[in-house]
């Protein structure tokens, strides 16, 4: 079975790679197969990991409050009807409300307060490099924030600050691009390693 699995995996891998030459029936077949089995995978996992342990089993044990999320979940399917579409908003409202609360607490405590606090650094640390780094960090954050302040025209001192802020932003985007290239190449390395190693056994 393992050999059949390896050959199946290699075949599907080559079907997808064939897209690099041009779009073709093999790629289309693999693409549609992927969408179909992934969708089936997700639902099966929801059944075993959420519906059974978190809904069905406690409901059978007598926890009738779970009829509320069950009803809301079923109401989601009214989206397929024209007449009762508006009922699906109740379930969506629950999800959206919770995630709005998540955003407020999470971003407030985790990003806003902690990150501002972490940027309040001493301008003299005892050595020149440490002091320079702290100064550059504070200066960089302030000028980049000035760039994002669009309520005032970027002229004069604000304009100069915004221009310096762009330099820091460009350094950050360049670093992100470099890391993105690294990430994408890693993904290809993984697949080529499988083809040359596990399938063709050319790598020891």
């Amino acid at each position: 079975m393992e050999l059949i699995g390896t050959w199946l995996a290699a075949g599907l891998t080559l079907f997808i790679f064939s897209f690099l030459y041009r779009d073709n029936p093999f790629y289309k077949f693999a693409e549609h197969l992927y969408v179909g089995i992934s969708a089936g995978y997700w639902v099966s996992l929801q059944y075993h990991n959420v519906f059974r342990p978190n809904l069905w089993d406690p409901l059978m044990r007598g926890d009738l409050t779970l009829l509320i999320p069950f009803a809301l979940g079923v109401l989601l399917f009214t989206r397929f009807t024209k007449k009762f579409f508006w009922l699906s908003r109740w379930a969506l409202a629950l999800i959206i409300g919770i995630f709005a609360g998540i955003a407020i607490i999470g971003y407030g405590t985790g990003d806003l307060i902690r990150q501002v606090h972490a940027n309040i650094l001493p301008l003299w640390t005892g050595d020149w490099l440490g002091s320079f780094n702290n100064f550059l960090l504070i200066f960089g954050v302030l000028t980049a924030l000035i760039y994002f302040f669009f309520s005032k025209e970027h002229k004069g001192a604000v304009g100069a600050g915004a221009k310096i802020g762009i330099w820091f932003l460009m350094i950050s985007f360049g670093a992100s691009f470099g890391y993105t290239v690294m990430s994408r190449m890693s993904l290809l390395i993984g697949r080529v390693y499988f083809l040359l190693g596990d399938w063709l056994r050319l790598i020891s």
Partner: protein
Amino acid sequence: MRREVPIIICFLAGFFFISDYFIPQEDWTEVAHRVNQWAIIVIAFAYVLGVANIVRVNSQVIRRKGDDWKYKIVLLCGLVLMLTLGIGLGIERGTAFNWVFMNAIYPLQATMFSLLAFFIASAAFRAFRIRTWTAALLGITAVLVMIGRVPVGEIIWPDFPDFIEWIMNVPQLAAKRAIMIGAALGAISTGLKVLIGLERTYMGGE
């Protein structure tokens, strides 16, 4: 009522979540925890809704013999196969469901994403044009990070990794922190607008 009830539900759900943070009292935490559990179940139903929509849309294409309709049959067959294997026979290690995951889903998904390596290289050759000083700064930083973060960079200059760590820990960090603070302010204000009903785009049309 069609718009008011969802706004009230939205507010109450968010209120329970936020208040749980500020009221560390056991009974209140229990109520908030229960609302969280309900959300987990409703979100799971949303996944099923998404898949039901896939079935609906692709069935319509097959019925009217639209573009690539034969491939849509493959899609639906794959979906039915995984549902049958997963719900009928179980999802554990050693099952057919797990075998299909490791030998079909895994290689298909991994290969789809690996195509990006080719496209990013193609984009770097054909579209990465250094026309301004700021673009030059971006390009130089990108090249330095690309070379400095791999072992060959250490051969070129032994302190290259330390230099890259300095770029990541000081100028790069400064910009990312500024973006983070700005995004946090935006997320908080959007969250508040959603909770008090000013932002209602999630409700869709009439």
